[in-house]
């Protein structure tokens, strides 16, 4: 058995997996379990399960700024990362420093690129919402003509969804909805009483908008098998982004890496920034990767028979764009010219909420790591609104107010203090999770001159919302208000943030190396294999043809294991 962490390895591997996040972890698990000698290449540092969760369980008083981030850090080190809802003083070590990873935006545009550059990547900090895509989602581009047709349908993914779900542990109800296929799931988290009340009202007034419990990658009830993985049931702390020693949510560290490690077939090279792929024009195969050490800037190379790019949507595309040769002067496997194009994000730019009266004698216990969910109800062209295409899902929750409202209330002294220690008014809030259309103009490219500290060309973004996204958010805010009225909510307020909110903020960056049936307008085939080079695969979000409305990570997992299965068969057939 070779050493697990070894960045100086000279071995020739069967498979090289670039990235260690959600897709990298799955690719490594699947290949090693099938007996393939695999090298996982990670640009960031080593993070070990439990050992490297330094802030886990710590109360706010143990942070000198009570988990807020100081001006110095916010302005100098994390100007972009600090815009993320999950970024704070207790989680900042799982976000990449903006100082180290600079990029630029086309004038008048802005993309917020949230990064997690460490072993485990963003699997440590993700929001864990997990939904299957439906045939309506996979057919959307074809049905309304925006973007290219996905080369796959639900039947292609369904068995692989089941496969990953059983291992990951997805909590959720079997809701039996055509627009949101059920998962092979663990029991759902409970709704609180106000949520049940709201769900009943919506069911009456909006029968096409069922409100269900959000499905998430948490062990709501760990099975004996999960416990044998060293994972136990979720304790409802909802401090997931600090890391979870209970292993109650899915991360590379808690769920895939232990299995890959146990095979003895895995080697991990951390602190290894991939500069580019090594390509052999004679055989038309990638041979490996060129790497620059993130710490001492020395260069090295790793070699393998197959390369899986799982470096995150943008990370993967940066590597591909920077891998140039005589045959591929504009980026490897880019004969179509669409590499870097059709960049998308989800559109979370409308919200509304109001106070719900009654239920004063009820509270809840624990911090539920998910909320309620209303699946997209405009999931096919016949259900579209007249003035824009596609639709949005809605997330939300009901909760009781707390001391945070105290600033805006009058009161001084003991009675005021006492009032702040009691559960406050019930508030029900909801927000949009809308689609963003795939558009050629929305692009990430290499900057012609600027380089990062590793000498790698920086990225330059040019991405904007279109009228479709703006109209959708305006509509969502109005719909939310109308729905809240049917519940009898008071002080209803809505907000449309798309005029200030920039793409990237949903951290669902998608596209830029899209799949497709036609190699003239897509980078990958239906198995996430590049059309141009048989032994090069991309299984992260770069492969997306459309955003759909559902959170993408579960689909990344299914795409990855399906691609591994295909790749292995091709290797056996000696076509790779």
């Amino acid at each position, binding site marked *: 058995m070779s050493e697990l962490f070894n960045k100086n390895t000279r071995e020739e591997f069967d498979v090289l997996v670039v990235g260690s996040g959600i897709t990298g972890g799955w690719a490594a698990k699947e290949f090693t379990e099938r007996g393939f000698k695999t090298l996982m290449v990670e640009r960031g540092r080593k993070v070990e399960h439990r050992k490297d969760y330094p802030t886990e369980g710590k109360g706010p008083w143990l942070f000198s700024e009570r988990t807020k981030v100081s001006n110095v850090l916010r302005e100098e080190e994390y100007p972009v990362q600090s815009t993320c809802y999950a970024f704070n003083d207790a989680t900042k070590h799982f976000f990449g420093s903006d100082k180290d990873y600079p990029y630029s935006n086309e004038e008048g545009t802005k993309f917020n690129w949230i990064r997690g550059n460490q072993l485990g990547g963003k699997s440590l900090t993700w929001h864990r919402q997990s939904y299957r895509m439906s045939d309506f989602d996979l057919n959307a581009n074809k049905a309304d003509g925006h973007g290219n047709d996905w080369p796959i349908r639900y039947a292609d993914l369904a068995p692989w969804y089941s496969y990953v779900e059983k291992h990951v542990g997805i909590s959720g109800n079997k809701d039996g909805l055509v627009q949101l296929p059920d998962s092979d799931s663990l029991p759902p988290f409970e709704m609180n009483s106000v949520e049940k009340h709201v769900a009943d009202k919506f069911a009456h007034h909006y029968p096409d908008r069922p409100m269900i419990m959000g499905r998430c990658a948490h062990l709501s009830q760990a099975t004996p098998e999960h416990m044998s993985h060293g994972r136990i049931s*979720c304790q409802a702390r909802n401090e997931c982004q600090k890391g979870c020693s209970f292993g109650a949510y899915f991360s590379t560290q808690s769920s895939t890496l232990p299995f890959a490690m146990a095979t003895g077939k895995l080697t991990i090279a951390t602190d290894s920034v991939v500069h580019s792929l090594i390509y052999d024009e004679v055989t038309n195969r990638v041979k490996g990767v060129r790497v620059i050490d993130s710490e001492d800037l020395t260069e090295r190379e790793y070699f393998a028979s197959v390369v899986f790019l799982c470096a995150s949507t943008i990370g993967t595309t940066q590597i591909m764009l920077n891998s140039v040769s005589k045959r591929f002067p504009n980026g490897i496997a880019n004969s179509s010219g669409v590499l870097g194009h059709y960049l998308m994000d989800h559109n979370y730019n409308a919200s509304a909420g109001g106070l719900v009266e009654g239920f004063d004698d009820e509270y809840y216990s624990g911090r539920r790591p998910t909320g309620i969910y209303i699946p997209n109800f405009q999931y096919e062209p016949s259900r579209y609104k007249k003035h824009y295409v596609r639709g949005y899902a809605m997330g939300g929750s009901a909760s009781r107010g707390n001391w945070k409202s105290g600033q805006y209330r009058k009161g001084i002294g003991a009675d005021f203090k006492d009032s702040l220690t009691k559960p406050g008014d019930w508030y029900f809030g909801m927000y949009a999770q809308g689609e963003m259309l795939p558009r050629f103009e929305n692009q990430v490219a290499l900057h012609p001159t600027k380089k990062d500290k590793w000498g790698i060309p920086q990225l330059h973004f040019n991405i904007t919302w279109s009228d479709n996204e703006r109209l959708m958010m305006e509509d969502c805010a109005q719909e939310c208000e109308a729905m809240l009225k049917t519940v009898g909510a008071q002080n209803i307020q809505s907000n449309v943030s798309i005029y200030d909110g920039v793409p990237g903020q949903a951290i669902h960056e998608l596209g830029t190396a899209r799949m497709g049936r036609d190699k003239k307008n897509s980078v990958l085939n239906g198995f996430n294999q590049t059309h141009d080079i048989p032994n090069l695969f991309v299984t992260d979000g770069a492969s997306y043809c459309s955003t759909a409305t559902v959170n993408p990570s579960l689909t990344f997992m299914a795409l990855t294991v399906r691609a591994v299965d295909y790749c292995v068969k091709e290797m056996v057939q000696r076509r790779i």
Partner: protein
Amino acid sequence: MVKLTTKQSVSSELRRTILKRIGAAVGVSAASIVTNTSIGAAAAFYEKGATINNSSTAFSRDALLTLRSICETVIPRTDTPSAADVNCHEFIAHQLSTCHSLSEVRNVQQLITQIDQVSRATAGQPYIALNSEQQTEMLEALEDHKGFDQTTAHHFSFLKGLIIFGYFTSEAGATKALNYQMVPGGYKGSIPVTPETKAWGSLDYY
């Protein structure tokens, strides 16, 4: 030594009260170290117009004492510690210097000065020397814009937010005044509320 500007006419009883309050504020010297030394030193490495970059903007000892009294007035000691007991005033001085804008710091500094000036003008004594009823009345008047303008009331709302944040994120505030679940053990969608029920001090995000 702590320098206090008090009027000659302050009674000996009042002097004792003041001294007691200073005595309670053992954190004052520690606070001045925090505000004048460590933050100043940290700031020396960091220069940007929007934030504090020198110790001259730190709170004076007098201002810190007044702030301590304001903390005590807003969230007094009951069966649980007060905001002053958990050194909210020191936290606020620190938090303003590290996490807030220069204008927000100045607003709070001016607010404290103003509260003290109004106190001297109307009651003939600094704020710290007023009894707790007078102090409460004065801050209530401030919230009602009586004797204070709307801008001042707005700045007070900001300071009040900091006091509340500082208190309920302190260990005693989060775990004694509120109910803190470090490991809830699971989620229950409905539990009954009784007169003794305290709100959760353990939040998803602070």
